[in-house]
């Protein structure tokens, strides 16, 4: 936590991170470490008086998604989080953090609750991906993720998304359309699991390590690519070595971001959120006569404005 930091201890300068990095595959293994603090534990230590809310009002309460209202330094917020287990039993109960469609539909209900009362929305992302079983397909896994992304993209309240462990594919992005998107320092966030990528592109799941190298899912890389806006520092040995320090670090980051976003007028917030994701993607347009420029990272503009 000695790195260059902005408010709330969030690391926003990729350069400050160069000497701290292991390999992408180390990052994947660390992000999946079962000893890391998971959502329920973090919620318990970061928020006061958390009250869990249940159900999608349509089919089932999905235990892989934990939602509710809590207080962050006295400010009521809505929390939507993916829950992996810290044990095999809990993993079975929580389906290893893989939601069914009803999990995303529960999340959507909470988004709307946050919107109605202008409670800041905080999402904690930690999933290998959306559950790929046939029942999930039957109930519309694709539709549920799409709708969750859609509702977040125009939600009329501030959103802070944090990848706390494994951010797997569309199942993670369904909670990830934030005004600010943070990652814990050792979290990963990828379009497909390294194993999945390896199976398809490298013709062998055993090549997961090479796939991880190629996909660059680690937090420092994603900060450098502008996919995330900042990293939440972990204790020196990783989050699993000191849950208390990790919680304090996360809390400091969230408090700072909520305070910052609270100052942004809603219309600005929505247009900045649109611009944030609008700017993502790398392409060139020879027809337009010039290389398209990568737009300036969104968080820099946001930080500047919010500081005025």
């Amino acid at each position, binding site marked *: 936590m000695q790195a260059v930091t902005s408010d709330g201890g969030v690391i926003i300068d990729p350069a400050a991170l160069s000497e701290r990095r292991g390999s992408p595959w180390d990052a994947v293994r660390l992000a999946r470490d079962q000893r890391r603090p998971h959502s329920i534990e973090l919620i318990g230590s970061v928020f006061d008086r958390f009250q869990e809310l249940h159900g999608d009002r349509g089919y089932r309460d999905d235990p892989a998604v934990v939602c509710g209202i809590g207080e962050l330094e006295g400010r009521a917020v809505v929390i939507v989080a993916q829950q992996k287990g810290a044990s095999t039993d809990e993993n079975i109960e929580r389906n290893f953090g893989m939601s069914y469609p009803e999990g995303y539909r529960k999340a959507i209900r909470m988004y709307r609750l946050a919107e109605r009362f202008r409670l800041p929305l905080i999402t904690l992302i930690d999933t290998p991906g959306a559950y790929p079983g046939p029942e999930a397909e039957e109930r519309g896994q694709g539709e549920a993720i799409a709708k969750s992304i859609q509702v977040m993209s125009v939600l009329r309240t501030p959103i802070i998304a944090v990848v706390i462990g494994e951010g797997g594919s569309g199942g993670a992005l369904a909670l990830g359309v934030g005004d600010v998107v943070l990652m814990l320092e050792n979290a990963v966030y*990828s379009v497909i699991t390294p194993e999945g990528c390896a199976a398809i592109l490298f013709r062998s799941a055993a090549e997961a390590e090479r796939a991880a190298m190629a996909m660059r899912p680690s937090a420092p890389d994603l900060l450098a690519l502008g996919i995330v806006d900042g990293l939440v520092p972990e204790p020196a040995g990783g989050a699993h070595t000191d849950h208390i320090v990790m919680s304090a670090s996360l809390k400091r980051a969230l408090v700072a971001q909520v305070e910052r976003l609270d100052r942004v007028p809603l219309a600005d917030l929505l247009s900045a959120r649109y611009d944030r994701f609008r700017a993502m993607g790398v392409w060139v347009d020879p027809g337009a006569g010039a290389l398209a420029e990568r737009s300036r990272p969104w968080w820099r503009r946001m930080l500047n404005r919010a500081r005025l």
Partner: protein
Amino acid sequence: MRLRMPFRRGKTEFPSHLWTQCPNCGEMLFNKQLVRNLSVCTKCEHHFKLGARERIALIVDSDSFTERDATLVSGDPLGFTDSKAYPARIIESQTKTGERDAVITGDASLGGVPITLAVMNFAFMGGSMGGVVGEKITRAAEHALSARRPLIIVSASGGARMQEGTIALMQLAKTVAALTRLGDAGLLFLSVLTDPTTGGVLASFASLGDIILAEPGALIGFSGARVTSETIGEKLPMGFQRAEFLLERGFVDQVVPRAQLRDRLAFFVAACRLPVAELRWGL
């Protein structure tokens, strides 16, 4: 990165053989007749995959299509390499298909109504969505919004393009946000799902049509059937993830045979037009 290559337009799926065997019923089909029948098996009505240019010709009023953003090509943000470098794969696909990436967008008219159209091309790297597809779909939606046109997207995709890593994943959010603005302004978005529409494309814009049509027999699902089957360690039921299955499950409005697609789209485009006086941002 300037591209210099012979762009071959108007290729069909059956360029070099006189006969094609139907993968569904085994019938040997004379290619000329197959193309005349819109690439639908004359015996069992199996719908063959259709190239993007053929699809456009099938849908819009003849000679009404004007392409937009035709010159966009992909960057290589990660320096991605598997058995081959990503830029080399792109060029390979460009050479094979005669297209620059996996979607073609543009303006046209349909039954006389001006529309904006985006058609994905499965032949180009499995119709995968990277930065170019995301940008072109987003631009198409933004253009439809400012020009007050309905938007039709014909999907055919294996999902997000892995070679662009997490940036590819972000295209889901980017495209959805643009389409949501379109819808909030009271403009119609018709989503047409063709074989196959899976992964990140199904988990983003393809599922968000005001009306969703699908071609008969099209494979439509979030997870690949292989993954799903491995997850439960069992064989999947017949028809799982096919268009008709999704219709029954409530995720598709109609399964439309290819020959009727144009008329069907024209009807919805004509019917779902907010009175001009009420066009606005946000309902």
